[in-house]
């Protein structure tokens, strides 16, 4: 009962802050609302017995990526544009978003996915530790994707430096 109430409160905060992300005029306010949404998602991960994912969510998303975005907003010094209204665009976007919602709910709830089940349950996660279980999977089954990820990060670093340079 208490868990359900907690879930409802977190859901309310997550959805309201997500709506604030797309309605705020000032990009800084949007960024702060997005950080609040990320914290709500981290709470969901804790409720789903995934504490390590929640930690990484707070550190990487709410920490690193959002600091980068806020830093860029402040560096560019964008003025708040309170000029043009685009009502037809908002109506069209809302209609498409509504259909996306219906489609996503239908797909998620009605599809019978034949996914592989595994041996992990809450007792095992509490006993061994979530970090160790994820580490075992990541460094045995997913070793090759993990190595390819490092190449992706290298390309991103080089690309960011090259693109942001004044003169090529």
């Amino acid at each position, binding site marked *: 009962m208490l*868990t*359900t109430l907690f*879930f409802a409160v977190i*859901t309310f905060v*997550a*959805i309201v802050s*997500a*709506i604030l*992300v*797309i309605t705020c005029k000032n990009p800084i306010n*949007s*960024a702060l609302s997005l950080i609040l*949404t*990320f914290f709500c*998602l981290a709470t*969901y*991960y804790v*409720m*789903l017995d*995934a504490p390590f*994912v929640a930690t*990484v969510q707070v550190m990487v*998303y709410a920490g*690193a*990526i959002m600091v*980068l*975005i806020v830093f*860029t*907003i402040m*560096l*560019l010094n964008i003025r708040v544009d309170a000029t043009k209204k685009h009502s037809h*665009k908002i109506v*069209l*976007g809302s209609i498409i*978003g509504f259909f*996306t*919602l219906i489609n*996503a*709910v239908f797909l*998620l*709830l009605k599809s019978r996915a034949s*996914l*592989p*089940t*595994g041996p*992990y349950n809450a007792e095992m996660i509490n006993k061994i530790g979530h970090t160790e*279980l*994820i580490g075992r999977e*990541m460094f045995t089954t*997913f070793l090759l994707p993990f190595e390819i*990820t490092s190449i*992706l*990060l290298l*390309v*991103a*670093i080089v*690309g*960011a430096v090259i*693109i*942001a340079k004044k003169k090529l």
Partner: protein
Amino acid sequence: MENLNSYLIVSAILFSIGTIGVLTRKNAIVMFMCIELMLNAVNLTFVALSRHLGNMDGQVFVFFIMTVAAAEAAVGLALMIAFFNNKESIDVEDVNLMKW
């Protein structure tokens, strides 16, 4: 643990809010943040299904998605800075150099 379907519905709602944001806003950085919101909605689906099935693969995928999001943040924000240096604006309406 709550019911699986409630997590999936929350994820679908967050994903559609992100879609509406990408389609309606003109500020490139806000569109970028909406894309991050959509990626996070997908992450929530991965973790919920992973917990439901008792399989860790979904949570490993969440890490790969976070890596892609970090790379996207670095390159995307560099692109925005380069565009701002040229046009003094990051409105997507001003990205019309190749428009016929």
